[in-house]
């Protein structure tokens, strides 16, 4: 746990997200926080080094972002429109895998983490596509994910939520992959994640 005195404005609580990578022999878990001030996800170590951060715990970060930051929308009167960012709204868990990963390994990880789809990445960790849980479940003995990867255009974490919702509805997509500026996955936005925010805001 990191505790620092930043002074500054009102404290905000940011949720820590966990991304599990299942391609390596042992699953690797990466914890990140979406910084509404910088409009991007960052590691807990980078977050802890920020002068606005008071406390970094396992599930939550407390900070006092500058007043001009979008974090002001987190605790009061959040709205849709252009105000809420996809990165703030995406789910707390995500599963990533390389296409060479056995389908059964992915299916078990998805069941364990309770997420709708796995985010498939290339050897450089860049986004390739999604594998839906029913497709992974239906191919438990398949030695890789070839043939069940679905190409879905990702959304950027620093872009507004409203267009992402419009896309989900138009494409009947229950989940959209969320990526950073380098096309690396940072999370998954599900229909329930979006709905949760809408309910908070109305």
């Amino acid at each position, binding site marked *: 746990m990191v505790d620092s005195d930043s002074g500054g404005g009102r404290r905000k609580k940011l949720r820590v997200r966990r991304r599990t990578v299942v391609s390596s022999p042992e699953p690797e878990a990466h914890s990140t926080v979406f910084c509404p001030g910088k409009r991007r996800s960052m590691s807990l170590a980078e977050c802890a080094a920020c002068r606005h951060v008071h406390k970094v715990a396992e599930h939550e970060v407390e900070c006092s972002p500058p007043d001009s930051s979008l974090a002001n929308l987190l605790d009061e009167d959040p709205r849709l429109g252009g105000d809420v960012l996809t990165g703030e709204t995406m789910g707390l868990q995500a599963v990533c895998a390389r296409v060479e990963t056995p389908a059964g390994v992915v299916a078990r990880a998805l069941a364990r983490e309770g997420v709708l789809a796995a985010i498939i990445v290339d050897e450089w960790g860049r986004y390739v596509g999604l594998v839906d849980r*029913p497709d992974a*479940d*239906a191919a438990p003995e398949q030695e890789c994910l070839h043939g069940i990867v679905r190409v879905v255009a990702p959304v950027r974490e620093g872009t507004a939520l409203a267009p992402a*919702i419009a896309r989900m*509805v138009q494409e009947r997509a*229950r989940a959209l992959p969320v990526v950073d500026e380098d096309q690396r996955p940072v999370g998954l936005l599900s*229909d329930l994640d979006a709905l949760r925010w809408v*309910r908070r805001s109305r």
Partner: protein
Amino acid sequence: MKTTTAANVMTRGVLTVDADWSVAELATFLENHSISGAPVVDGKGALVGVVSLNDIARGSTLAASRSPEAHAFYSHGLERAVAREETARFRVDDSPTTVRQIMTPMIFSVDATAPVQEVADTMIRGHIHRLFVMEHGNMVGVISALDLLSLVRDT
């Protein structure tokens, strides 16, 4: 202003299967309609559960021993098209097993008159992406989180 209810947003005409069908009849039905599962009704038309291709695959296990998590219907829906080869590999032709024996008797539902806000809260609280809509004890439709999000997009 008139409140929008589940009935205003739901999808009607949901295909159902009979609890007393054999697994072979179920497999043929799913294949013919290109769906991966369906809600299950009893002889009186009452909703008693949900069943999917994965349940056929797991047919030898007892319903009581299944995972406590919600059935795939409530997270993914059952529209995934099923190929003939997929059902063929289960070899269910001579099976005496019925749909009732392999289905998941888990029903998450809302009343047709429920305001959409209440429907959304039910989904969020239960981590459920879709719900059955009931009217006078009968299932009259299905409503999904995407259906609710379409209201946001349209306003």
